[in-house]
C-alpha cells in the first residue's frame, strides 16, 4: 500500500516536472505565510481561548493551501496550533485570523474588504495588493521572494506587525509615507 502510494507520488512528481518552479514558489510562499503569523502581535480578542488555534484562510490558490497545510502541521505559534481553511471566492471567510488571497482570485478587492471588515489580516499576492487593502503583499525581488507591508491596512484589521518583520520587508507603507 505504501509502495503503491510512493509510486503514485513519483508519478505525480514526474507529471509536475514542468511546473517545478511554481511548486517550489508555492511552498516558499506557504512557509512565509506561516512565518508571518509569528510576527503578528495577536491580541487576546482574536481568540476564544488561549489554546484556540490560529486560523489561516486561503482563497484562490490551491497549491499554496496544500503546501501551507503541510507546513503548519504539528507546529505552534505562541502556543496556538495552526489550522488552514480553504475558502471559495464567493464564501465570506469565517473563523480565521489571517487570510491569503492568491493570484487566482478574481474579485480581489471585494474579498479583501470583506475580510478586513471581520478583523482578518489579509496577505495578498498581487502587484496592487497593498493598494487594494492587503496588509502584507508578496513581491518578487530578483530571483528571491520578498514582501511589502502596509501598516495602515494591518491597523484597519486591528493588528500590529512586529518591527522585526518590517526590518526585512522590501517596502513598508504608512499613511502619509506613500
Amino acid at each position, binding site marked *: 500500500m505504501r509502495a503503491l502510494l510512493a509510486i503514485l507520488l513519483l508519478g505525480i512528481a514526474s507529471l509536475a516536472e514542468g511546473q517545478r518552479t511554481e511548486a517550489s514558489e508555492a511552498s516558499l510562499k506557504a512557509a512565509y505565510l506561516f512565518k508571518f503569523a*509569528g*510576527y503578528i502581535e495577536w491580541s487576546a480578542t482574536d481568540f476564544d481561548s488561549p489554546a484556540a488555534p490560529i486560523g489561516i484562510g486561503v482563497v484562490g490558490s490551491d497549491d499554496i493551501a496544500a503546501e501551507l497545510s503541510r507546513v503548519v502541521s504539528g*507546529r*505552534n505559534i505562541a502556543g496556538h496550533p495552526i489550522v488552514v481553511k480553504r475558502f471559495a471566492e464567493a464564501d465570506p471567510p469565517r473563523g480565521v485570523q489571517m487570510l491569503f488571497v492568491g493570484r487566482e482570485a478574481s474579485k480581489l478587492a471585494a474579498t479583501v474588504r470583506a475580510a478586513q471588515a471581520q478583523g482578518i489580516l489579509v496577505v495578498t499576492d498581487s502587484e496592487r495588493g497593498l493598494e487594494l487593502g492587503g496588509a502584507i503583499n508578496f513581491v518578487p525581488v530578483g530571483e528571491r521572494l*520578498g514582501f511589502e507591508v502596509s501598516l495602515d491596512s494591518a491597523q484597519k484589521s486591528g493588528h500590529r506587525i512586529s518591527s*522585526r518583520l518590517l*526590518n*526585512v520587508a522590501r517596502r513598508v507603507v504608512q499613511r502619509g509615507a506613500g
Partner: protein
Amino acid sequence: MFEAIRYSVRSKAILLVLASTVSALALSAAGLVLYDLRAYERQWTTDLTTQAEILARASAPALSFDDRSTAAKDLALLKVRPFMLAGALYTRSGKLFATYTKPGVDARFPPRPEAEGYSVRGDQLSMYHRVIEEGETIGTVYLVAYYRPWSRLVDYLTIIGLVMIASLAVTALFSGWLQSAITMPILEVARVAREVMSQRDYSLRARKTTDDEIGELVDSFNAMLGESGRRARELRDADQRKDEFLATLAHELRNPLAPLRNALEILRMKNVEPASAEKARQMMQRQLAQMVRLVDDLLDVSRITTGKLAVRREPLALQAAVNDALETVRPLMETRHHQLDVSLPPEPLMVVGDRTRLAQVFSNLLNNAAKYTEPGGRVWISLEAQGEEAVLRVRDAGIGLDPHALSTIFDMFVQVDRSLERTQAGLGVGLTLAKRLVALHEGTIAGRSEGGGLGSEFEVRLPLAAAGVAAAESQPTSQAAPATLRRLRILVADDNIDAATSLADLLAARGHDVRIAHDGAQALFVARGYEPEVAFLDIGMPKVHGYEVARRLREEPATRRTLLVALTGWGREDDRQRAREAGFDRHLVKPPEPAEIDRILEGAAARTAAA
C-alpha cells in the same frame, strides 16, 4: 644580611614589617588575580553570549525570509564593539549566510557551524549560538572576539608591583621611625650596660626618650643600676670589713703568743726564781683568757651571721649583771689608770633575761670606754629606772665619735680607730653583738657623742619586769678548791694527742684512773674492757666519730650508764642537740673550763655512788 638580622632587633623588625606587607599583598593579589581571571572569563563569555543572543534575535527574520543584506547589516552592528573580530550567520541547513569582519582582520569562517558553545584558541574566543524562533532552530550565530586574559594578568602584576614598591617605601619610612622610637632606646640601654660592665661605674644612667613600654624599660634598667650599685658598694664595704676583720683576727690571735712563748721559756729555765715563775704563770693565764675571749667573740660572730644567737630568759637584778661586767673590766681599768665612777640604785631593777649575756653587753661598753680613752681618763657607769624601763649609761671622756661613725658603729667588724694602740683592741664585733643581745631582750641601745675628742655616751634601755618577780638566787661561783673525790675510771678520747694527754694529766693529778684513746675504734676497744664511769669524747675523730662512739657505748650493757661528755670546738645549739641525740650527757666546748670539769666529775661521783 643574615648576620645583620641575627644581631639586630631593628633588622628583625624591618624584616617583620616587610614580610607581613609583602605576604599580605602577595596573598591578596593572588586571590584577586584568580578571582578576576575567573570573573573575566565568565564575564566575557556571558557578554559574548548576550551579544550572540541579541544578534540571533535581530537576524532571525532575515534568516527566516532569506534576507542576506539585512543579515549583513545586522552583523555590521558588531563594529561598535572593538573587541569583536568577526561574526557570521549560518542558515538552518548550515550554509554560510552572512559575515562580518573587523577591518584589518583576516578572518576565516568555518564552512559549517559547530555545536553550540565557546572555545578559546590563542587570543581569540569564538562562540556558536543557535538562532531559535518559535522553538525552532533556524540558524546559527558565529562570533569571534579578542580574549586576552594574559594581558590583563600582566596589567595586574604591574599594578601589584607598583603597590609593593610603594609599600616598601612606606615600610622604609616606618623603619626609620621604628629605629628612633624602639631600637635606639634599646641600643642606648645596651650601650650603658656595656659601659657599666667595662668601667664598673654604677652611676651611669640610660637616657629616657619615650614614655611607652621602652621608657618603662629604661626606668627599670636605671633603677636596677642604682640597686646594683648600692649592692656592689655594700658588698665591697662588707668584704673590706671582713678582710680587715681577718687581718685583725690574725693580729689579735698572734698577740698573746709572744708572751706565752716567753713565759714558757721562763718556766723551762732551771733555777728560776719562784716569784718570776709565778709572774710568768699569771701572764700565761691572762693571755690565755684573752685568747679564749677572742674565740668566744668569733663564735658569737658565727651565731650572729647564722641567726643562732639566743638568750636565756629568767628574772634577774640588773645590778648583778653590772657587777659581773665591772668584775671583768676592772683589770683593764686599772692597767689604763682610769677612774671609774659607778652609780647604782639601791633597790634591785628586775628584768627578764640572760645575766651572762647582759654582763657581756655592759662589759663590752665599758671595754670600749676604757679602750678609747687616753690612760688616766674617766669612765662613768650609771643605772636608773625611768618609768617602765631600766636605763644604763656608760660615758667616757675619750676620743668621741663623729656623726658618720655613729651611724655605722653597730655594724659588724667596724672599729672606730684602727690607728689607736692595739693592745686592747678587739675584733670589732663588740657593739654589733651588744646591739643584737639588747634587741633579744626587747631593749634598745644608742650611741651619742658631741664630736671628736669630746667623749661619748652609750645608753641601753631594757624593759623592767613586772612587779613581784623575785630575783633568782644567784649561784655562788664556787672558787673553793676541788673536794677530794673518790677515784673514778675515766676514758679520754681525742685524736689531738696533746689535748688528750694534757686532759688526762689534769685528771690523773686529781687522783683519777685515766685511759687514753686516739681514735673512735680505739676508744670503743678500751671502753669494752675498762668500763669507764666517765668518758670525754672528741667528736671529730678518725675511724669512728664521737657521735657513733657514744651510740655504741650506750648499746653496750657495760657502758650503758657511763657519763658521756662531748668535747668539741662546735658550740652551736644544733651541735648540742646532735650530741644529746647521740646519747651524750654533757657537751663541752673546747677548751673546757677546769671548774666545769670538776663539776662534771663531782656529779659522776655522786651518781655512781648512789648507784
